[in-house]
């Protein structure tokens, strides 16, 4: 059977969500031979970076590149959590950052409060890589894209010299996901 998997990464400008989305899509498309699209919403003009990044992954052609029914929502701020959880499928998954989100919304979906930013800052050593930690969690939970593909995609995208740091961030995320299973 064919599938269409929709992920929304939400938060605020500067959190690297567009990059994370793009890496996710590249992992799926380039390394796992799936179809993938990634799109985003912007603040005023192009400046502030996006507050929302969506990835659709499918084994078929992806006609509509925007989320319709979200399978997985990442929320790195309270605002984005409040605003977007409505679009989650009933059997969807909400991943909220423990530091930034204080109140989880009600809903039929599964919700997790996870220490994403904290892990990046304290365990990996750089808050900036929270987006990659999140990717590890998403990879681990969704199982849509292989870990190898993700690692390859990450290493191809991040600045030279930071590959090791990012790989650690990703694996830290995968670990967090494993504990949930």
């Amino acid at each position: 059977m064919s599938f269409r998997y929709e992920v929304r990464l939400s938060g605020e400008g500067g959190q690297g969500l567009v990059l994370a989305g793009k890496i996710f899509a590249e992992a799926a498309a380039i390394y796992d031979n799936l179809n993938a699209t990634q799109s985003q919403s912007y603040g005023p003009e192009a400046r502030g970076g996006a507050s929302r990044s969506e990835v659709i992954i499918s084994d078929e052609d992806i006609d509509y590149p925007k989320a319709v029914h979200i399978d997985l929502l990442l929320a790195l701020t309270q605002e984005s959590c409040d605003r977007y959880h409505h679009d989650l499928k009933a059997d969807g998954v909400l991943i909220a950052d423990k530091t930034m989100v204080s109140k989880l919304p009600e809903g039929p979906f599964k919700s997790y409060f996870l220490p994403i930013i904290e892990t990046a800052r304290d365990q990996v050593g750089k808050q900036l890589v929270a987006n990659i930690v999140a990717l590890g969690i998403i990879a681990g939970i969704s199982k849509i894209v292989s870990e190898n593909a993700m690692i390859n995609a990450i290493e191809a995208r991040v600045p030279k010299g930071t590959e090791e740091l990012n790989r650690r961030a990703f694996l830290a995320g995968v670990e967090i996901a494993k504990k949930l299973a």
Partner: protein
Amino acid sequence: MAEKGKSNRVQVLSGNEACALGALAAGMRFYAGYPITPSSEVAEVLSLELPKVGGVFIQMEDEIASIGAIIGASLAGSKSMTATSGPGFSLMQENIGYASMAEVPIVIVNVMRGGPSTGLPTMPAQADIMQARWGTHGDHPVIALAPYSVREAFTLTVRAFNLAESFRTPVVLLMDEILGHVNEKVVLPLPQELEIVDRVRPQVSPQDYLPYAFTKNGVPPMVSFGEGYRYHVTGLAHDESGFPTNQPEKIERLLLRLNGKLEKNRENIVDFQVDDFDDAQVGVISYGSSARAARHAVRLAREAGIKAGLFRLKTIWPFADQEIEAHTKHLKAWIVPEMNLGQIAHEVEWVVGRSIPVHRINRIDGNPINPLEIMAKIKEIA
């Protein structure tokens, strides 16, 4: 499904990036532009890539200067392009008319955002459709294409150059914010898979060259400045030799050729794609990003056993009137989803007269059209 593993030709690109790469593949070697959201990445990619192939990138002081520069560069022999969005496209109108009148091949990319005016700089729309046809003063020819995928952003950019060169006319590539910014898996065609067309050079000596000659297909051969032909180019009404004229007969002859040349060659210009149309009872006409929602909806409809079909415009202007008419026959109704207030729907109504209803689905709030909206309408009608 093919097996997993890295493919060397697979990329994840945005529509804007693919457009820039398409232009390079088409042989574009001169870009002038002025930044504007959501088109700026086209310029950004080209500022990086053009010098690598010996081409020129220049950021001009505004959009008027940008289109002026690309017309100049095209006359000097470089395939040339600019990219902009609504406000910049409005500013370019005078010189788009000049390029039409002086028959200078250029490509103008308009990555549409919400209007009117400054409007919604980071949100998509498809509301510059009529402007692409009528934005400049006077009757004039223009070609407009609308890609719907990242891959098509590449291939239709190549086609835009081919058409511009074939017919000596400005070609507008109507993208939109969604397509411009979506990152999508894509395998681009290899250079050897692409057909690249260059302007037809004159077969005659400089003395006999008429830069605005009346030829069989309505398109005069063209030679670049500096190649020994020394002719005159003007935006004034002119005769075959290119010099201004006030003689009514010559004016009329010029303008009829000019305005007729695209219609004359329409079968080489008008392009569209139909899906699931053989037995369709409900037809959906769409284009650009909206056509992706439409295609999704038609699939959903077919899954639900409804005989829906998609007619997707790849060429917006000249309008696919004959083709639409031919596809109207067995339909109950057309549905026209678009991110504007019905600009193409109006043309579809003109085509079908009152033979069948034309239902509009319009969205102007900055959101893309949702496939479910279209699906609901299909159900309602079927």
